[in-house]
């Protein structure tokens, strides 16, 4: 059983990293194989799926799907561009902040898919290359996403597994993000300010845009804003209310469906079931190696390496996660690390700092390379389809520097606050 579980796990992860077969197909096939080969009973496999994570993802996807039909996101982005008076460098910084805030509340990929089209239109009006702005947005979406429980899939996984609340994330991670954002914005400003030049006549184009006309449906907008507010308040209070995050998200989703009387079929078709099944498969794959004791062995190995020292283990967690996540998808990585952190906790270590180190490492690591996070790849794909080029090298040039700087800031933060 032991070697079967490891073989299936390694084969699946290799296939996911190689990207030759779709990651969801791999996760599903690997998970089913574990059951067929008798490593897990079907019941064990199903109970390994963390339905809190699944419910939270589905709930938020439904809320975003309905809200994105209102034109709210375009409105805010164009507003920001006008506030910047059409000045390209300012637009880049403002849109980056908008992206960071959105991605703290939405999934990063969704944020990029909403902000990229507006960015192309703004760049067309100013006759500038949108790529510097797009890269800045991608980087800030990865950073902003790490500030909250719902902003990034690794955080959702960690929050659910560790029983950490929305408030816990806000109190522990938002402070360091507030330090990282301006530093990174300054780096982006230094790198791109010379490339972003336009004429005064073209700036007028931006000022002429009738921003109110981006709102497609005022009634729907009001309802969406109401539900967004209810959901965010729900998240802030879910610890005190003893409600799981998935309950809050699904409550918001159901409420929005009820008050807007939207036909569920169209909306439910828009839910990314491929992502949902991917998560379900991963949970089962990890449960397989957990059951046969691989993670216990790994945990013992880590403890021997760091001699059980709390600072050494935490720093290893932070930098290990950062480096891994800049080359492989951080979702399978974090899914595997979670039971490992539980094991380390069983051996007497304080898990709190380890959770924050894992979250910060996985989220910041995503900026290291173009393949480090799904938002990066989605952004590059959108740029290519719009007739621009965002190459691995181009992203790496600034992304890697940003990653190192944000990791260093995180190191100091964790050191001072927890160790």
């Amino acid at each position, binding site marked *: 059983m032991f070697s079967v579980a490891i073989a299936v796990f390694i084969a699946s992860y290799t296939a996911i990293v190689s990207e030759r077969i779709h990651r969801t197909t791999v996760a599903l096939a690997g998970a089913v194989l574990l059951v067929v080969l008798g490593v897990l009973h079907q019941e064990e496999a199903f109970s390994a799926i963390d339905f809190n994570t699944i419910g939270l993802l589905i709930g938020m996807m439904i809320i975003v799907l309905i809200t994105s039909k209102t*034109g709210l996101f*375009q409105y805010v982005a*164009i507003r920001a561009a006008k506030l910047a008076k059409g000045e390209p460098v300012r637009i880049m910084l403002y849109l980056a902040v908008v992206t960071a805030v959105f991605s703290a509340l939405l999934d990063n990929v969704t944020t990029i*898919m909403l902000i*990229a*089209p*507006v960015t*192309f*239109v703004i760049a*067309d*009006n100013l006759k500038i290359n949108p790529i510097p702005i797009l890269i800045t947005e991608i980087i800030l979406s990865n950073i902003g996403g790490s500030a909250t429980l719902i902003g990034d899939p690794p955080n959702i996984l960690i929050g659910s597994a560790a029983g950490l609340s929305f408030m816990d994330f806000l109190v522990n991670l938002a402070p360091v993000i507030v330090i990282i954002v301006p530093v990174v914005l300054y780096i982006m400003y230094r790198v791109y300010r010379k490339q972003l030049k336009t004429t005064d006549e073209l700036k007028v*184009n931006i000022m002429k*845009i009738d921003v109110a*006309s*981006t709102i*497609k449906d005022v009634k729907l907008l009001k309802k969406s804003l109401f539900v967004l507010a209810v959901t965010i308040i729900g998240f802030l209070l879910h610890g005190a209310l003893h409600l799981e995050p998935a309950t809050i998200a699904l409550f918001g989703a159901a409420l929005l469906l009820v008050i807007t009387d939207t036909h569920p079929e169209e909306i439910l078709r828009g839910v990314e079931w491929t992502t949902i099944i991917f998560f379900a498969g991963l949970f089962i794959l990890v449960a397989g190696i957990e059951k046969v004791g691989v993670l216990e062995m790994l945990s013992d190995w880590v403890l021997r390496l760091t001699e059980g020292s709390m600072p050494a283990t935490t720093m290893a967690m932070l930098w290990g996660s950062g480096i891994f996540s800049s080359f492989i998808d951080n979702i399978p990585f974090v899914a595997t690390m979670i039971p490992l952190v539980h094991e380390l906790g069983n051996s007497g270590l304080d898990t709190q700092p380890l959770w924050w180190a894992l979250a910060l490492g996985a989220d910041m690591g995503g900026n290291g390379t173009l393949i480090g996070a799904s938002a990066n790849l989605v952004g590059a794909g*959108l740029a290519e*389809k*719009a*007739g621009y080029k965002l190459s691995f090298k181009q992203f790496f040039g600034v992304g890697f520097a940003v990653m190192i700087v944000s990791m260093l800031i995180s190191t100091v933060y964790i050191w001072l606050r927890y160790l």
Partner: protein
Amino acid sequence: MVSKKTNGLIVVDENNRPVGTIDSFNLIKAMVPSYLHADPGLAKFEPEDVFYKAVSQSLNKTVSDMMEELHGVVVHEDDPMIMAATLASKHNFRYVPVVSESGELEGLVSRTDIKRAMAELLNISDNVK
């Protein structure tokens, strides 16, 4: 298309076998950038020269990028008319290719052909003007 005053073409491979169709709708669809397809409301904020830019960018696209693949949607000369009509209505193609036994392109059934056949049955003559 403009010089032949037609709105559609049938694409064939080197053996004269039909592989796709292309019409004015495909050309327009290929020209409009995908981010505007994703968010059509934004198109009204684009400056005038974006049309020119999009058109010149789409010049790099080949016919096979823009055409709609047939996936075996063809009729033979002795197939019933209703088959051509069904295929034309199911696939939104302007023309349904007519092929020989060996699969080579022999002709086509256009929407107009189908319309005329319908009119003929209903005894509607086309010289009303």
